[in-house]
């Protein structure tokens, strides 16, 4: 039940900002950005580097952004302290990719300045290793094989599996059988210890998604991700009322309110804010709401390695964080580029868990030469 009480005007928006400072070691003195494009996979993302007056640097990643948007973000951070994260969250709320990139760069900068890892700044570790989930490329077992092999070599034990889209000529039962076979094929390739998330990629109708969920719930996928684009309470009710398979949603959401509504209606079981569209600061707020509904978060990520590693820090510091999704390219060139940016392969684990990097900030040096090499534009 939701009453018709009115929403107070202005709530949720910072109406008064702290005054810009003139002299402080944490004052943001410079914003640089790279618009990066991955070879072969063609993933695009934005890397922001903030430098403070005291000489500390911090890196953050967001989704694709235009040079105009980056210029707007530069204006917003001018004269601000790297600790003014609530002000920046409000100031950049219409530029979600940059809210994520700048917000995370601020966290990295402050953590490096204070000589602690980001997870320590976010409230300290609640776990000593973080569960990782490989986001595989490819829609068929054959297409995903390269990506799966690489992920297994990198220590992943849990994988996403993008389910085939339904051709309009295929009867529903035949489609369900096709999905079931696809899952079985991948399980047989990955071995019995593998765990799976079904990725609907928002391509199913609620009815088709419900049929798939009911048919596959006894093989216990960890959850059914983004089964449909119909993220209304009624649309999702069709799925959650017919099946007990947990539903993950939210990769395209850019505001907290969207999650709050679905949580209140009981329509989702794993909250999936995208790391390219939401800063760790914002996701921590979403996690606090989800916690009161006994719901886990598992941030979605289809971006670069700096974003993925920031997600590991969040996972380490939030109790109801279940896993961090990390894209695993099928292309060797894309994989090499990701490792190059982080000064060596960091997106890896052991038996399905990534170790926490107990070094300041993100815990590794960002290779700016690699960013330059793979950028469409440096701003």
């Amino acid at each position, binding site marked *: 039940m939701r009453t018709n009480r009115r929403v107070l005007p202005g709530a949720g928006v910072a109406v008064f900002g*702290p005054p810009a400072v003139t002299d402080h070691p944490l004052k943001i003195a410079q914003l640089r950005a790279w618009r990066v494009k991955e070879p072969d996979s063609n993933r695009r993302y934005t890397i922001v580097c903030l430098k403070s007056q005291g000489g500390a640097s911090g890196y953050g990643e967001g989704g694709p952004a235009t040079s105009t948007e980056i210029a707007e973000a530069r204006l917003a951070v001018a004269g601000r302290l790297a600790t003014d994260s609530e002000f920046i969250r409000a100031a950049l709320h219409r530029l979600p990719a940059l809210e994520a990139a700048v917000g995370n760069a601020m966290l990295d900068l402050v953590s490096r300045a204070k000589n*602690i890892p980001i997870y*320590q700044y976010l409230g300290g570790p609640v776990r000593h290793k973080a569960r990782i989930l490989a986001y595989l490329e490819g829609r068929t077992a054959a297409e995903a094989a390269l990506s799966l092999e690489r992920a297994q070599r990198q220590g992943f034990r849990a994988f996403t599996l993008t389910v085939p889209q339904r051709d309009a000529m295929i009867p529903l039962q035949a489609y369900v059988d096709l999905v079931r076979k696809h899952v079985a094929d991948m399980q047989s390739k990955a071995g019995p210890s593998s765990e799976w998330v079904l990725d609907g990629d928002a391509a199913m109708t609620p009815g088709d998604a419900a049929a798939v969920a009911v048919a596959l719930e006894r093989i216990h996928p960890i959850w059914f991700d983004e089964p449909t684009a119909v993220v209304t309470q009624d649309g999702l009710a069709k799925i959650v009322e017919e099946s007990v398979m947990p539903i993950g949603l939210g990769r395209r959401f850019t505001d*907290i309110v969207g999650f709050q509504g679905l949580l209140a209606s009981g329509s989702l079981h794993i909250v999936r804010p995208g790391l390219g569209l939401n800063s760790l600061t914002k996701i921590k707020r979403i996690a606090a709401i989800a916690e009161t509904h006994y719901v886990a978060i598992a941030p979605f990520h289809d971006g670069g390695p700096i974003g993925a590693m920031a997600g590991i820090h969040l996972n380490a510091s939030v109790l109801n964080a279940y896993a961090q999704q990390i894209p695993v390219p099928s292309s060797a060139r894309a994989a090499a580029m990701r490792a190059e940016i982080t000064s060596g392969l960091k997106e890896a684990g052991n038996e399905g868990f990534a170790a*926490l990097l107990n070094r300041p900030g993100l815990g590794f040096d960002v290779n700016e030469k690699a960013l330059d090499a793979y950028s469409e534009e440096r701003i």
Partner: protein
Amino acid sequence: MKRRQLLTALAGAGTLAGASRRRPALSSALVDCGCAPQIVTATDKPPGAAAFRDVGSKLRITNMQVFGVTLDERIAQADRPYVFVKLETNRGVVGWGEATLEGKAGAAMACVLDLKDLLIGSDPMQVEHLYQLMYLGSFYRGGPVLGSAISGIDQALWDIRGKVLNMPVYEMLGGPIDARGVRGYYHASAWTLAEARELRDKTKAAGVTALKFQLPDLLEWVETNAKIKRAVQHMEMLREGLGPDLDFAVDFHARPSPAVAATILREIEPLHLLFAEEICPPENPKAMARAVRHSTTPIATGERLIGSYGYADLIDMGVVDILQPDIAHVGGVTALWKVSAAAEASGIRMAPHACEGPIGGIASLHVDAAGPNFLAQEICGFVDAGEKGRVWEDLMGFPAMRMVDGRYTLPSKPGLGVDINEAALKRYPFQGTRPFVTAFHEDGAVASL
């Protein structure tokens, strides 16, 4: 072997024989419990800490003290001796927090000490983990006694974090939203129009912009015309005396039933209160929703709720406009921030309750300063600070929780920004628990006060 690996191994074994082989590692108090295999790591001191050896800081909690502080009952309400918590570390950094619980001081102090084994030897930088260890690890979740104990310890942990990182707590939370400070209000009473006018002048002269009053009577589950009219006329008199510019709220203190509250709320709408507080008892959000659905007066509640879980229904149902967690009960900085984050997403503002001592009040300011949805901070004090103001200055070394131009200024020192004068604490020795004041109706039945 790491804890998770150990648990995995145990889960894999899953046989009675397997459990039997591990028996020597078990605490003797738990051998007859069905969950014994899962608690093998109880031998770990403090529990679970070994798993974080490689990822935490080198800081360790070495000691915890709890202080009861009783003020003369002519200065402060006798039911709430202050309960202060002090954490000490191996690096000499100390943290302070407040676990004051009205009417249950002894229980709160004992509960703080009950949690000592979870804390000594642990890393104080793991504030979220330690919060969860105390909350989830206590098995029986929530309740005001545990909530207050966790609150005091959590505040002290945040104090240490801030001191170690050389930052005020509000900066670690992403603030300040407004560097001028946070808006506050004092308590007040006026029973005649002349008193209200005098109060208006004194309040404006002090730069204060908001006050809070109580209802004139206790109220029963069904009320008479006489009492309802007296309540309404009292508020009308206050508005007339205070004038149109001074904001004021009225605390119903959960005295009315939802039906009585709905009647009063309907008639006071033209007075444009800052908010009406605890218009009926807090346990049943659906009942509260029935009372408020015809009113446009902002509704506030939440001082008696514990943990962020306690607010989920109120937020999801959109029953209220303002939430009022108390940082000395809800679960400290950690829980107050979580409630604030959830409230923000639903367009609900925050006006945290604080009717205990000065540490909790100051700790609350830090969360207020980092919340975009913050409205106003309470403190149990009057425009004229009186003798209590002098005692707080004695304890804290400065006139704590006094507004300047209608705002509490933000501490600039690291952590919570407080230094407790331990010598001064001895001047106000703990005199034991005093029960919360009780009230009775004309027929002898217990009243909600």
